[in-house]
């Protein structure tokens, strides 16, 4: 097989991103009778369990800027963010009717309540609120979490019509370890040579991981890494920034492009944290549920939805992202009305200030159309970073 170009690989990702009917996932399900597809919302679910049940985990990240939200708006007041309304729209227009189950992680009260709405509005799909511990002791939060994972395992086994074995789980953990390692590699590659891996491409590549089987996504990342490394692309004199706050409702692709066009290389971000939630490999020895729990408690990244028990540690992950990617500043890009991200932001800003890291902040909605103000703000930020570093 001839090596595909970056453009060809990204075209595949873009097609998956644009397809609000989830044709690829539907086809995957139809291929083998008895297969299940389980939708999940941000920020994190243990996808290994779904895979081990012979299922496809399908990230449902709202409707983006292409979906016309008509009915979804009738379910939400104007002061609630957009992702739940576009997700409802996807549901009522039948675009999610092939899902066997839908998981709602404990990220905020909006998605929490959406889990109950789903039960009422889509009774044929099994809807489950997926709780994770805010206590990180193995003998407290760990025990709770292992039991929650056990319950989810039972639900998935019922849907799949077969038990989810330890062996299958270990196999799934191996595949996802490999996938996360590749995600980290893509991020590291972009941080090293951001001109070779524009953020809109990396974003689309990561989005593909929301809808593709894990091994296929891993193969796609390998292919991209090889093609992008070989491509000759012009290097710009851009500033290097980390994006924070976009862990749930996703910014429109245009916003990501606009930030880069305005003179900022995005060298790290918090889009789709599920792709690299565990910072190191999950253990493949011993009880797999205990391994997943240990990885959650002790080895996962930080985000606003997670309690930080140590005040001194607040913002540490963001600062580590900045250091690791040699970023020169942080852009807080936050969905409007997103309580977790907006309440977290001042604490992160203080942590950045203590380390002398500059930042700016703005809000967006997944269907924001006007990019000019954002381009101007990011452009000014990029210029000021250059001035500071020159000073």
């Amino acid at each position, binding site marked *: 097989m001839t090596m595909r170009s970056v453009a060809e690989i990204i075209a595949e990702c873009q097609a998956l991103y644009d397809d609000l009917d989830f044709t690829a996932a539907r086809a995957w399900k139809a291929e083998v009778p008895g297969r299940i597809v389980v939708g999940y919302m941000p920020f994190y679910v243990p996808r290994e369990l779904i895979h081990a049940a012979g299922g496809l985990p399908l990230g449902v990240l709202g409707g983006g800027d292409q979906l016309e939200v008509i009915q979804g708006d009738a379910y939400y007041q104007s002061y609630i963010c957009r992702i739940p309304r576009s997700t409802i729209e996807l549901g009522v227009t039948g675009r999610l009717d092939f899902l066997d189950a839908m998981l709602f992680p404990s990220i905020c009260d909006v998605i929490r309540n959406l889990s109950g709405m789903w039960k009422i509005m889509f009774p044929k799909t099994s809807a489950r*609120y997926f*709780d994770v*511990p805010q206590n990180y002791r193995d003998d407290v939060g760990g*025990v709770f979490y292992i039991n929650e994972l056990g319950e989810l395992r039972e639900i998935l086994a019922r849907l799949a019509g077969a038990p989810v074995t330890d062996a299958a789980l270990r196999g799934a953990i191996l595949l996802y370890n490999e996938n996360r390692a590749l995600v980290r590699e893509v991020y590291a590659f972009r941080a090293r040579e951001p001109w070779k891996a524009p953020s809109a491409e990396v974003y689309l590549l990561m989005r593909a991981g929301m809808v593709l089987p894990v091994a296929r996504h891993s193969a796609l990342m390998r292919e991209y890494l090889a093609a992008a490394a070989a491509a000759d692309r012009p290097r710009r004199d851009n500033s290097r920034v980390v994006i924070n706050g976009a862990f749930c409702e996703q910014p429109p692709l245009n916003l990501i492009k606009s930030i880069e066009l305005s003179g900022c290389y995005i060298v790290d971000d918090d889009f789709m944290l599920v792709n690299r939630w565990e910072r190191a490999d999950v253990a493949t020895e011993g009880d797999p549920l205990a391994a997943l729990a240990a990885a959650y408690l002790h080895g996962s990244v930080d985000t606003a939805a997670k309690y930080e028990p140590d005040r001194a540690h607040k913002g540490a992950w963001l600062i580590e992202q900045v250091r690791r990617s040699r970023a020169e500043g942080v852009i807080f890009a936050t969905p409007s009305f997103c*309580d977790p991200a907006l*309440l977290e932001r*001042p604490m992160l800003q203080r942590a950045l200030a203590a380390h002398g890291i500059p930042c700016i902040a703005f*809000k967006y909605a997944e269907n924001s159309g006007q990019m000019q103000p954002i381009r101007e703000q990011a452009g000014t930020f990029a210029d000021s970073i250059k001035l500071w570093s020159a000073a």
Partner: protein
Amino acid sequence: MSPPAPVVKDSSMLKQKEMISGNYRRLETAAADGRKVVSTFVPGNLNELIMCFDVLNNLPEINAIQNGLRKKTGGYIMEAEKRGQSEDVCTYVKADLGMIAKGNIGPDGQKLPDPDLLLLSYTGCFTFMKWFELLRDHYGCETAMLHVPYQGDGRITANMIAYVVRQLREEVIPKLERLSGVKFDIDRLRENLARSARAEDDFVWVLETAKLRPSPIDAYFGGVYYIGPIFTAFRGTADAEDYYRLLRAEIAERIAAGQGPVTPAGDMPAERYRLVVEGPPNWTSFRDFWKMFYEDGAVVVASTYTKVGGLYDQGFRHDPAHPLESLAEYCLGCYTNRNLPARIDLIEQYMNDYQADGLLINSIKSCNSFSAGQLLVLREIERRTGKPAAFVESDLVDPRYFSPANIKNRLESYFQMIEQRRAGAAPARAA
């Protein structure tokens, strides 16, 4: 949760007023008296446990409410926004942060003490977690997290109870012991819980009198007075027990006299509309909002807001025989910790049991925990009961989001709609 008493003051109101100001006095002299202060939240609070350690209980939500009633929160919210808080987030948080930024002068004009411990009982709302992380950022004091899982499937599981109990044993109690120097005595906790349960019996009796016609109480505007002691720093005290005994006797007298609810304008003359209300009230225009109801003869016979600190009317009682498990069950069972289908079932039950004419939703901008999903609640209740539902929007303590003319118009057309429905007209919606 305890507004200044209406013009007509019953002895229960005077007693509550004294209890509240007594608690503020104790807070204000905490340092001089050598007493430690624990800040915590209303839903899922652990008052009986906190009392076992002789520490004082400061409730930032109550401070925000009291400041809202005194119209101080507008300035505090703007102060917090000036200092970097977003205009989009919960105004309780901003009212608290703004008050602290402006010198931490409490609702009664005295300086509030810095907390020695933030007891983050995380029941029914994610914002609580961010709120106390922000306070911890400011005070640098110790925080004890009590993570209360959500009833995603509408039930409390053994795993949830065990998790909460383990946190009480391993996290909360050791921190309270260390802070106070008082060793935990489970028998003391049992005594407190027994007092709670007795008060809870009287409280439920009072709430259920709204099933009568006319209802002797308003279960929302009046209800926020009645929940005061049991939702806050007094559950488990002898004072709270006395308060509910007194209140019960007063309501019994009103029933005997065939009276309706007491309002700021005196006794309500005639009951014309019986409503169930979902959502918290607005505090900055509390009196004006109430007036829009009693002037038109609308009585709230049941409300969900009076269940944020526990669903005692559904049978829950604090249980001295199982002290820690009972606290866990209490935290897990609060209204906003129930999933949406369970909330809708409860409202439907109220509509039927209290023979309501309709449901009114006061949708609060600040509060995603309550508000996200309320439009589905409205549809479902209309569908299930055939009764009209209406929707108004306001905020808790941000005066910028209370629009009296809009709300009044909406309510008036809603009352007309109820009249039409009674006269047999086809269903329509006011919202």
